[in-house]
């Protein structure tokens, strides 16, 4: 394991905190992947036409298999009196659940307008829980832009579930964060080969598979944006296994090692289980990262994956980070990644997009990681970009995806080189 700490990591780097226009999604966007992950859940946004339009735009290709999400659009008459809005909500929920008897978990998702008018969705959830128990469990969380940025929506959703999880007394490992199924299977196979189990997942595919939690639960995060969920689990007495995130060969090994140590897995068993996939990951990264070596990367804030990904690109793909922007910096969670990221880049939290664009232009990086609103305009100015959202929607965790992860960054550079050659001829 190559956990050679740099002489000086980024943990003590002063953070540039900015506020101004933020070019980011709100937390509602998480519904796009959460509704596919939890197969008996429905996400009901209580909001405006803008919320519905956002979900449709973020889904990109409209997923016309009947979506397990929808928006209860507030209208003029709902804004007039709150009692009315609650009655309307009850009616819409009753109608929805009657039409979809397969739904076992219903999330009432707060939005900017519902929060500004102080529509109390927590009380609505309590009331609806009584009406629809035991068949349906009703939760509520906020995905609003005034409270949450992009991936924080998943955090808020999972954090809302934690207090309702059954008490557990067994010493169990809980893996927290939504992953694509293929990645989840790989993760479980590696842990099981080391003799660690049973392993529980949050979120679970179905309500019946939800984990219990208690003082003997230890948990590991697979996503760095789960600050509130982390805090909620600590409140239930669970213990967090802090580790770098499982991106790349090094990150995956360090993440598995921290869990293996917790469960007393012998060194040679650890080596036996990880040797082959580690070798494959290193080989795949070497192939995919050729175009990345010696290049400079600039991260605009997007998903909070930025710190671990910068660590991967710098240490495993030979890049130099110029600026690593993140919407929020949870030191307790990304601290181990900050330790590994060599000092040098500007670490920025929050955003004033115009100022950050000025810095990006001045730095003229070889690769800019940014949201979809900025990518084409920057490409048109001659910069090479990687849209950040793909990093959230693509399987990128663990050994077998390490090469793909490097490939997501190298493809734009390779593509530019191909097109340039064509243009020159």
């Amino acid at each position, binding site marked *: 394991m190559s956990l050679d700490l740099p002489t000086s990591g980024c943990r003590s780097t002063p953070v540039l905190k900015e506020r101004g226009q933020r070019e980011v999604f709100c937390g509602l966007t998480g519904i796009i992947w959460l509704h596919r992950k939890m197969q008996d859940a429905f996400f009901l946004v209580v909001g405006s*036409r803008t919320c519905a339009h956002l979900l449709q735009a973020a889904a990109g290709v409209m997923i016309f298999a009947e979506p397990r999400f929808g928006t209860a659009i507030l209208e*003029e008459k709902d804004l007039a009196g709150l009692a009315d809005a609650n009655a*309307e909500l009850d009616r819409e929920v009753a109608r929805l659940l009657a039409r979809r008897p397969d739904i076992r978990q219903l999330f009432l998702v707060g939005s900017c307008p519902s929060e500004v008018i102080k529509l109390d969705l927590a009380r609505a959830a309590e009331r609806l829980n009584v009406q629809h128990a035991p068949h349906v469990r009703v939760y509520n969380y906020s995905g609003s832009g005034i409270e949450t940025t992009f991936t924080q929506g998943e955090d808020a959703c999972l954090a809302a579930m934690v207090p309702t999880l059954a008490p557990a007394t067994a010493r169990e490992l809980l893996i927290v964060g939504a992953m694509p199924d293929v990645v989840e299977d790989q993760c479980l196979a590696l842990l099981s080969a080391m003799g660690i189990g049973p392993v529980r997942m949050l979120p679970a595919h179905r309500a019946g598979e939800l984990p219990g939690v208690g003082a003997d639960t230890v948990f590991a995060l697979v996503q760095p944006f789960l600050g509130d969920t982390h805090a909620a689990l600590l409140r239930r007495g669970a213990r967090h296994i802090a580790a770098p995130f499982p991106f790349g060969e090094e990150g995956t090994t360090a993440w598995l090692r921290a869990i293996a140590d917790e469960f007393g897995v012998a060194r040679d068993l650890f080596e036996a289980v990880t040797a082959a996939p580690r070798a494959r990951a290193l080989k795949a990264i070497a192939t995919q990262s050729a175009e990345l070596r010696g290049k400079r990367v600039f991260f605009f804030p997007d998903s909070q994956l930025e710190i671990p990904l910068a660590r991967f690109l710098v240490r495993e793909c030979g890049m130099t980070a110029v600026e690593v922007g993140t919407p929020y910096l949870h030191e307790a969670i990304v601290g181990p990644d900050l330790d590994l990221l060599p000092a040098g880049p500007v670490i920025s939290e929050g955003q004033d997009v115009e100022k950050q664009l000025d810095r990006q232009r001045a730095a003229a990086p070889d690769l800019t990681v940014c949201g979809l*609103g900025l990518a084409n305009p920057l490409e048109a100015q001659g910069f090479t970009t990687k849209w950040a959202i793909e990093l959230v929607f693509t399987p990128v965790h663990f050994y077998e995806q390490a090469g793909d992860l490097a490939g997501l960054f190298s493809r734009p550079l390779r593509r530019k080189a191909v097109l340039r050659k064509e243009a020159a001829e």
Partner: protein
Amino acid sequence: MKLTLWTYEGPPHVGAMRVATCMNGLHYVLHAPQGDTYADLLFTMIERRNHRPPVTYTTFQARDLGGDTANLFKDAARDAYARFKPQAMIVGASCTAELIQDDPGGLAEALELPIPVIPLELPSYQRKENFGADETFFQIVKALAKPMPRTEAITCNILGATALGFRHRDDVTEVTRLLGLMGISVNVAAPMGSCPADIARMGQAHFNVLLYPETGETAARHLERACGQPYTKVVPIGVGATRDFLHEVSALTGLSAKVDESALRAPWWSASVDSTYLTGKRVFVFGDATHVMAAARIAATEIGFDVVGMGCFNREYARPMRAAAKAYGLEALITDDYLEVEAEIARLQPELILGTQMERHIGKRLGIPCAVISSPVHVQDFPARYSPQVGFEGANVIFDTWIHPLVMGLEEHLLTMFREDFEFHDEAGPSHHGAKAMARTEDEVAEPSDTFAAEHADSHAVPVVTPSGEIVWMPDAERELKKIPFFVRGKAKRNTEKYAADRGVVQITVDTLYEAKAHYAR
């Protein structure tokens, strides 16, 4: 409160963005929470724009709400002016900011910026995207355009083209070319491609061409009142409408409507014998009212289809839509609920859908071909090639686009004759759509393989032999139904069941199938 899964229109401030984004020298300061910037990607991704929309979002957060969101707005407006130096500014609120009632218009006025600042009142909880675009364009025109002496030569303005519009980019070029054939040049095309200084000289034109009523009508009416400019009522989509438009312009200007039509191929393409198979194909038309009314006329009179249903999602145009539908003996479907549209299409089982991207998905689910004629749009509706809808070239483009999803005429016959052929069989779909081709399952009763089921789940959405209601299909009738080519099978099934239901027949036999066929023969 209304539960919505998918929407035809965004909120009204997105309409305002469509106006701001297609103009130059105009900046939009939008009082909005974090996250509303998602709308930028509609323009940078769907339309592949190489610039960010000229929009500054104040990006307020929960912690600002108790404090001073008004100052946040003022700072944002001041900074936006200093950074972008626009000729004019529009200011307004998104849905959330509307609730906190900061009055962006008043706040911006207090800044005393040395440019025109135009406040927008867009009621987010009542109105939608098209209204937002129409109202924004109207407010800009009202603020900036003044009566002035006419140009010496006959000129006109072209009104209504916006960012994210269905083929607006090419339509403006094509209608400019068309007017050029009559000897008329364009004074200003707006909002697309114009700047505030251009809006200020709109009064010089002799008349206005209202290209898209949805996004330009209020401005056209205003200019008629304020600047004495008449505007055209015919939208030149289709051969007949284009000729009507030329006559309308001729009546306004006294210039001859006789123009060179040598580039117009659609009428002959339609008249040539290869197109005979198009006769009476049943089409369902849905989208924005302007495109639907034009499409219905083309379908019925220029291609020879049978229009079996039509409607629009924009209630503002319900009245003309209903009148247009009546001319085809139809009741217009006015709804913004796509589930209602889907139910209507499933009921009618048309052979072709002319709709929006929403109907394209519905068609995919029901196994009915679809051509897109209207917004809402996605990335495929912004082709690299020149592809207008208006004028003579628009008519050519429309002929090609609508015919493409259908099985070609001779192929239809061959499929009927040789439907048992293992390579050339109906489930392979139209032979010019490569991706759908696949080998026929040799065993008639064999279940499709898993991969196939996953990839083609949609094409099986039309239940071939599922009994509907009380009526039961006998096994031999089921087999016979399967022999009917896929592109008419849905209709045959529906007709047979209706025929059976009308006569109280509960068991459908081969005879029932053919009696129904004879009954509905046209």
